[in-house]
């Protein structure tokens, strides 16, 4: 009996010793193992980035709002399209390249500010009328979210893929280019012609037989864009 209890005690002591040794070894090598895993983890992390399965949109936090009056008669709408083409600037230290093509459309509306038509701009004599309208101006430019599409994107293995911050940066530039090209498109001239046609038909509907609508020259300080 005593011999049996003695052997149990010995085996307990051996087990304890082994466990202590194991813990010591683990503690000693813990830093090394951790270091090794830290290097290995990125390799495991490379794939399966796009495995999203659940999305939720939250309600917004309101920040600011304001209502303003305006009195613009839009008489023309231009629909323009632009392809944003982004290329990498080659450099010796770059491995692989980044390319991006985004197509977008913009709607430009232009017309006449009716508030600028004063009594002095209207001359009536019997059934004839002369109306002087202000020069047309751009009312708004709308890059419709639905029209923004990524047509092509390529990023090398060692390169970072495009973020939306970058994509929107390119789109901002495209928006600026579209806005700057408005004078060359002849938007304002077309808007003037349509405004004249609109007011002429309106005035005729009001009973005037002889209608003469004139577009006033654009004021220098109000030149757009």
């Amino acid at each position, binding site marked *: 009996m005593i011999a049996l209890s003695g052997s149990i005690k010995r085996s307990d002591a051996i087990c304890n010793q082994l466990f202590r040794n194991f813990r010591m070894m683990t503690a000693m090598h813990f830093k090394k193992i951790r270091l090794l895993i830290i290097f290995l983890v990125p390799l495991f992390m490379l794939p399966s980035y796009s495995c999203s399965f*659940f999305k939720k949109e*939250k309600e917004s936090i309101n920040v600011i*709002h304001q209502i303003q*009056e305006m009195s613009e008669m*839009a008489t023309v709408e231009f629909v323009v399209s632009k392809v944003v083409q982004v290329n990498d600037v080659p450099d010796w230290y770059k491995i692989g390249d980044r390319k991006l093509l985004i197509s977008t459309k913009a709607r430009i*509306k232009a017309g006449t500010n009716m508030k600028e038509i004063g009594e002095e701009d209207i001359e009536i004599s019997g059934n004839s009328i002369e109306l002087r309208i202000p020069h047309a101006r751009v009312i708004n430019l709308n890059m419709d979210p639905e029209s923004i599409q990524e047509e092509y994107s390529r990023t090398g293995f060692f*390169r*970072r893929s495009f973020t939306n911050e970058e994509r929107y940066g390119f789109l901002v530039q495209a928006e600026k280019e579209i806005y700057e090209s408005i004078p060359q498109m002849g938007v304002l001239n077309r808007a003037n012609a349509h405004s004249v046609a609109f007011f002429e038909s309106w005035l005729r509907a009001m009973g005037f037989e002889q209608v003469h609508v004139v577009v006033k020259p654009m004021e220098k300080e109000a030149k757009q864009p």
Partner: protein
Amino acid sequence: MFKTIRLIIYLALVLIFIIMGILVYRAYFGSRSGGLKIDNTAIMVEEIKKISQLFTTTYYDELVLDTFKLISKTPGERLLDAMTIMRPGVSASNGMNYMNYRRQEMVVIARGRVYSGFDFSRLQESDLHIDDRSITFQLPPAEVLDVIINPSDYEIFIEEGRWSLEEAVSLKQSAANLMEKRAIEMGILEQSETTAIGLLYNFFKALGFEQITIISRLEDPYEPEIFVPAPGIE
């Protein structure tokens, strides 16, 4: 002697690592410092339309929207989690995240404009009635004509992980819908009616009409037709 050589080798290795780190960083984050160029492409005019829309009100708004998606963790991430739990003093009960998914967020700031007014192309002959010096004009229903959030009005504040352009655009569309809803709640259509009545009244008066009646009709199925007399009607 041997120690000096070893030291030199170590220093050289450190230097090589630093240089490699800089190069990898520049290649990976190079775009932020202008590593990309936008090619000059043509702007194509696709369509020219004749419209007759009277813009009478603009509503400015700014919204902060956020969205998230849950991404399944990679084996590496799960291993990292397991290692963190193994660390002395960390146990499963102290708030460790055992979920198999991690959260990726995108927060955007959208500044936009909602334009409302009237589409005069919807006018019919019966909407305008003239009798000598009196005019009766029935306005078409006030409506939201445009909701504009251009790329320059849209700021990506936080973007964690990978989000496609479609996802960002869809969030923008949500912002536009919400903005339109808020504008209508703020009374943009009623404001449009008031502005249009004032504007058209002055225009008709300048044309020599003495008795002016402007009838408005808001396109609301629950509201009866509203008769709004022109200001200072005679």
